[in-house]
């Protein structure tokens, strides 16, 4: 499906647009983007994979981003059947205790990727079976890939 068709198709799923914060954009990116409110993330993701039309069964990238005010996760999805791609993003504003729904029950690869995001950004994932530090030691303080992380010993700022 082309991006326009995709957008139309997905837009039909949510009949009450007020309740679901769903925004499409194609600006500054080569893929079609969807921004979704964290509460509806898991529901949307589940449908994206299991709907026959979208069939986005391949999560090829899961990125944590520190947007400054809020923390976000970007999901890059592709369909191995239709070969179309889609980007889903979810942002949380709470920097102290950011929580998102885990999608590891939908795509198994998300298990490790979410642990990585937790490790570096401190975003917690609900229903993740094994959410603990992946790369860093268990007693590491702070989340290194956040923009406000400081480490005067190990970080060289140019």
């Amino acid at each position: 499906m082309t991006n326009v068709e995709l957008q139309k198709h997905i837009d039909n799923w949510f009949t009450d647009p007020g309740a679901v914060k769903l925004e499409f954009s194609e600006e500054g990116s080569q893929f079609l983007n969807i921004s979704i409110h964290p509460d509806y993330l898991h529901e949307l993701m589940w449908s994206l994979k299991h709907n026959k039309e979208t069939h986005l069964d391949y999560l090829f990238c899961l990125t944590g981003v520190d947007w400054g005010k809020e923390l976000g996760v970007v999901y890059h999805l592709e369909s191995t059947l239709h070969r179309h791609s889609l980007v889903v993003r979810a942002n949380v504003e709470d920097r102290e205790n950011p929580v998102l729904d885990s999608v590891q029950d939908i795509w198994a690869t998300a298990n490790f990727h979410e642990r990585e995001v937790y490790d570096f950004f401190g975003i917690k994932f609900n229903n993740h079976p094994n959410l603990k530090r992946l790369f860093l030691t268990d007693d590491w303080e702070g989340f290194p890939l956040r923009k406000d992380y400081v480490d005067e010993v190990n970080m060289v700022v140019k």
Partner: protein
Amino acid sequence: METTIVNNDFKSEEYFINMGPQHPATHGVLRLLLTIDGEIIKKVEPDLGYIHRSIEKMCERDSYQQIVHLTDRMDYLSSHINNEAVCLAVENALQLEIPERVKVIRTIIDELTRIASHTLWWGVMGMDVGALTTYFYGFRDRELINDIFEETCGARLTMNYNIPGGLMYDIHPNFVKRVKSFIAHFKTKLPEYDSLLTGNVIFQKRTKGVGILTKADAISFGASGPVGRGSGYSCDVRKHHPYSALDKVPFNEALQTEGDSFARYLVRIQEMWESMSIIEQLIDNIPEGDYNVPTNAVIKLPKGEFYQRVETARGELGVYIISTGTKNPYRLKFRSPGFSNLSLLNHIAVGGKIGDLVATMATLDLVIPDIDR
């Protein structure tokens, strides 16, 4: 110590064993926490981060030219392809028109890198299942490719030959001759690989039916490269999202449907043949032209997000750049193939024996810096 053991509810006959971080079969500093019942693997839990260098954080500090050389150090066996991924992302963002010559040279070196990586893997694979001699035969052939790289790029492993806009310098006058003689040499050696290891009854028993990954699981776990293709999952980025000169060269995607270790092995052997055929098609008609297009000394990407996928020897490498219009990326994420491929290890190794785990891990072809980044 207790904290690292995942769950302490061991059954009475199970015990826990640390494989790595210094273990001959883990190819570097990968630590696997194994729960074992006798010889049977009950659980594999990878513990990562022993050589994490925070390349993604360093990239946020560096300029786009400087990022390229860091990617050498991720998957050091396909460093040229990693370099190319970043360069392509930057070039696409700047909408630079890259000369045909650069595209062809990049593709040739890509495929040479792939052969070099696969010959090393072949040697190490043999060694992991106990045939030590394969290691030397693999390295003998890889050495010739490294010589080609050294003559043209100046380095054998961390080449950093790509720059945004093209290549650092033109190919060496001997390049074409050397590549041709290598192809001629390797065509006689690859059948030897088959008679030494592929056909060997012990090797087949060790790998057939071991570490089975179904197609559905391969997609769900994000397996890519030979691991995915061994399960019959067509995931070659070179086919589906061709880059550089790959859209002009016909080649077959190596596919096996069994999904076991032997299938992954066969895919890689087949890929070496395919890579040779790609090189043969390109080597005789490298177009004339510039070896790069000039860029500004300070590259500033337009505001936006750029994603570039390439097929390294291990699978799909994704470079995801979020730019705010400054000279540094706001966020740069490497989606490395090894990371996803490692995550499925627990899934396919459970129920096998320790020997199976080693054979399975060898066919996943993990490079730990690629996972740790």
